[in-house]
C-alpha cells in the first residue's frame, strides 16, 4: 500500500512537471515493469488532459462595468473637511476679529477643541471607519453584566459575555481558528437593527458595522472582538447570534435579554 502511495505521488509529480531528469527515468522504468501502475498513470494523464481541454474553453470575464454600477459610491465617500473656523462655527472671520481675539489664539483654541471633541469619535473608535449610526452604537455606558457563555467547537473555541443596556448591548467574543479564515457574525434583523464589531486584540483594527443581518471579517488565530448590538425597540428575548467560520457554522448560541 505504501509502495502504491509513493508511486501515486510520483505520478502526480510527473504530471505536474516536478520530476528531475533522474527521477523521471527511474519512474519510467518502474512503469515499464508494472503494467497496472502504467494503466493508472495513463488514466490520470487522460484526466489531466480533459481538465486542460475544459479549462482552455473558458472565456474571460468582461463585465466589470456591470459590477461597478451596482456599488454604492457613497459608502466610502470622505467627509468634507471643515476648516478650523467652520468647525468652531466662526465662519465669519471678520466678526471674529472685531471682538479682539488674536489669530494665534483662535488657532490654539481651534486645535484644542478639535483634539478634545473630535466629532464622531467615541470610546476610541474612529468615526471614519464606521457607516451607520455611530452615535447609537457607541452609547454603551452604564452597562450591566447579565450572562456569559463558554463553549468549544470542533473548529475553534468561542466565549461570549453579554452586557445589556436599555437599547444597546455589548458582547465580548473570543475565538480561535487554526488558520486565517472568513468569520461571519450573523444576527436576527427583527431583533437587532444594527451591529458593529471591533477587534481588541489585533490593532490597528477597523470597525465593521452592518444593518443587514451579518458582519463578515477575516480573522485567524486567537482573537477577541467587541460586538455591539443595537436592539430593536421592544425586541423580545431570546436573541440569536451565530458565529461561523468560512461556510461551516461552528457554534450557535442564544443571548438572553434581561430588562435593566
Amino acid at each position: 500500500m505504501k509502495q502504491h502511495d509513493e508511486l501515486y505521488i510520483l505520478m502526480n509529480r510527473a504530471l505536474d512537471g516536478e520530476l528531475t531528469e533522474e527521477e523521471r527515468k527511474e519512474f519510467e522504468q518502474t512503469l515499464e515493469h508494472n503494467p497496472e501502475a502504467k494503466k493508472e498513470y495513463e488514466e490520470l494523464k487522460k484526466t489531466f488532459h480533459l481538465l486542460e481541454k475544459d479549462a482552455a474553453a473558458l472565456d474571460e470575464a468582461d463585465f466589470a462595468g456591470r459590477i461597478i454600477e451596482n456599488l454604492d459610491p457613497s459608502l466610502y465617500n470622505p467627509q468634507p473637511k471643515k476648516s478650523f473656523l467652520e468647525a468652531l462655527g466662526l465662519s465669519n472671520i471678520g466678526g471674529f476679529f472685531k471682538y479682539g481675539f488674536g489669530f494665534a489664539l483662535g488657532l490654539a483654541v481651534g486645535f484644542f477643541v478639535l483634539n478634545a471633541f473630535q466629532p464622531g469619535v467615541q470610546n476610541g473608535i474612529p468615526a471614519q471607519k464606521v457607516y451607520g449610526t455611530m452615535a447609537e452604537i457607541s452609547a454603551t455606558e452604564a452597562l450591566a453584566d447579565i450572562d456569559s457563555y463558554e463553549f468549544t467547537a470542533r473548529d475553534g473555541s468561542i466565549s461570549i459575555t453579554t452586557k445589556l443596556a436599555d437599547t444597546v448591548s455589548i458582547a465580548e467574543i473570543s475565538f480561535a481558528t487554526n488558520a486565517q479564515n472568513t468569520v461571519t457574525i450573523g444576527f436576527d434583523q427583527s431583533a437587532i437593527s444594527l451591529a458593529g464589531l471591533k477587534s481588541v486584540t489585533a490593532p490597528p483594527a477597523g470597525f465593521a458595522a452592518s444593518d443587514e443581518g451579518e458582519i463578515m471579517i477575516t480573522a485567524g488565530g486567537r482573537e477577541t472582538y467587541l460586538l455591539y448590538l443595537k436592539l430593536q425597540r421592544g425586541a423580545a428575548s431570546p436573541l440569536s447570534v451565530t458565529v461561523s467560520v468560512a461556510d461551516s457554522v461552528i457554534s450557535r448560541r442564544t443571548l438572553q435579554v434581561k430588562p435593566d
Partner: protein
Amino acid sequence: MIDQEDNKLVRQTLDGNTAAFTTLVEKYQTPIYHLELKLSGDSDDAKDLTQDVFIKAYEKLNTFDFKYKFFSWLYRIGMNEGINFKNRAKRKTELDQRLPAEEGSPVEELERKELSNMMQLCLDKLKDEYQTLIIMKHYEGFSYEEIGEILELSEKTVKSRLYMARQQLKKIILDEGGV
C-alpha cells in the same frame, strides 16, 4: 506575499476613490468568474455570483486586514459565495455552460460543450474542498504556493489533498465513461 499595489488600491477605495476599486474588479473578475462558473455550472449564475462577490468585498472592505493578500481574501469570499450557492441551488438537469464564440466547426463546438457538461457533472460529484482545489489548480492555473496562501494551508497539505482530489475525479470520470 502581500501585493502592495493591491493594498494601495484598497486604501484609495476606502478613501472614497471608487475608480481604484474598478481596477481591482478588472484585475480579478476573470479568476472569480471561473471559480463561480465551475462551482455553479451556469454562466448566468456565475456572473451574478461574481457581481455579488465584488459587492460583498466592497461593502466589507473596511474589515480587510492589510497584513494579508487582498486576492486571497477576495477569493475566499468567492469560495464561500459559490459553495453556499451550490449547496442551496437545485442542480439544473440541463447544464448550459456557455462557451466562447470561437471559430470552429459546429462539431467541434458540440464536442467542447459535451466535454464541458461531462466535466461539470464529474466535478459536482466531488466534495466541496476537492472541487475547489481542482478548480484552483487546473482551471485557474494557481501554483501550490498560491493555493496555500488562499486556503491558509502548507504546500505539502495542498499537494496531498489535491492528489486525493485527482484520484477521486479520475474514478468519477471513469465511471462516467470519460476516460
